[in-house]
């Protein structure tokens, strides 16, 4: 499938690109930050418009979006010229942080964390959020193995009946 090959090519080229950008980080940081766990198939040049997607990670793991769509290397003739810039290491209260920007046509198309406090950059992309995973039939909080509940604003009065109170009491 063309789209998949675009994604693979652009990812590979991004990885190569990253290797060519020598950062001060040690080890496998750069590569792990660009290969997302759940590639969402998309063309190498991202377009605006409807972005509703049915791609859902049923495994429940992180389905962080594909970096392939935004980190255009040079895999496709459609891809515009882009460059990758790695920032200097910033010290934060959590440890050193280093950020990499991908810029195309003067716009930042991607932000990745190449060095993350306490370890590698796995799952550390900024502004990359998983899609909610629909459950087949609605389930109760216990079977869904969840930590918190998001719902219409619960007032103190309604809280007694709310799921969150069950979670708070369960102290899972």
């Amino acid at each position, binding site marked *: 499938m063309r789209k998949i090959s675009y994604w693979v090519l652009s990812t590979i080229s991004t990885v190569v690109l990253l290797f060519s950008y020598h950062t001060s980080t040690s080890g496998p940081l750069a590569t792990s930050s660009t290969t997302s766990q759940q590639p969402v198939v998309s063309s190498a040049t991202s377009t605006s418009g409807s972005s509703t997607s049915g791609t859902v990670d049923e495994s429940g793991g992180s389905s962080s*979006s594909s970096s392939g769509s935004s980190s255009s290397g040079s895999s496709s003739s459609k891809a515009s010229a882009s460059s990758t810039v790695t920032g200097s290491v910033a010290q934060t209260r959590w440890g050193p942080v280093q950020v990499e920007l991908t810029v195309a046509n003067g716009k930042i198309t991607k932000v990745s964390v190449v060095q993350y406090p306490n370890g590698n950059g796995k799952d550390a992309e900024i502004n990359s959020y998983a899609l909610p995973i629909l459950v087949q039939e609605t389930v109760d909080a216990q079977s869904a193995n969840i930590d918190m509940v998001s719902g219409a604003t619960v007032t103190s009065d309604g809280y007694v009946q709310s799921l969150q109170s069950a979670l708070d009491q369960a102290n899972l």
Partner: protein
Amino acid sequence: MNPGGTTYRRVEQVMGMPISLALRGQHADDVRADAAWAAALASLREADRVFSTYRTGSVISRLDRGDLALADCPAEVAEVLAIAEQARVESDGAFDVRRPGEDGTVRLDPSGVVKGWAVQRAAAALAVLEDTDFCLSAGGDMVCRSQSPTSPGWRIGIEDPHEPGRIVAVVPVRNGAVATSGTAHRGDHIEDPRTGKAPAALASVTVIGDDLTWVDIEATAAFVLGDGAATWLAGRAGRTGLIVYADGRTELVGSAEDVC
């Protein structure tokens, strides 16, 4: 740190709603956690003192009555009103903190901004806990943080608006915020500022993004936009979401393009 370790929970009632905290890791259940929790609650209570429309002596009530000039208000009042104005413009008026009161005069009620803003601000008090993950929820809207790549992250259940107490979807969030707007618990409390009517097309909207201030605003605006919610949300960069329609249909919003 013990990433898969016990989750410790605390609850307090502030601003008329339950504030729930879940902590994991090194300072999940010690005096540091006690101090951070106290600081977070103090931050929320301070926001309530300044912004509560129920307190006639609050800064925002005095500002609304004209007893106080904006220049004499604390700086965060201007900050919140600036966010509100940006939200009004970007939602074409679907979100507005100024709307007609019962007597026809325009009233200022920035509660729709303040809640998310205040919780996002309060979360900073918890971020000082080294090697400790937290999830801070105010009545179903929350800030999540994972301090280590080995952290399991937080699994957030999205409540079924048609059947409160049950889960319609789950979203894993390591660092970010989740907000849901709907009518399940309080009835028709969301009003379209353009018409004064309660929107009816949707049962709930959940938005996931980096900052609770904005995902909370966006969930409210999207709920008001009704059938236009999915299109509008898709245009908000870096967001994912779930829309549950009044007829029970669900629609996921967000894809790889939104990462840009």
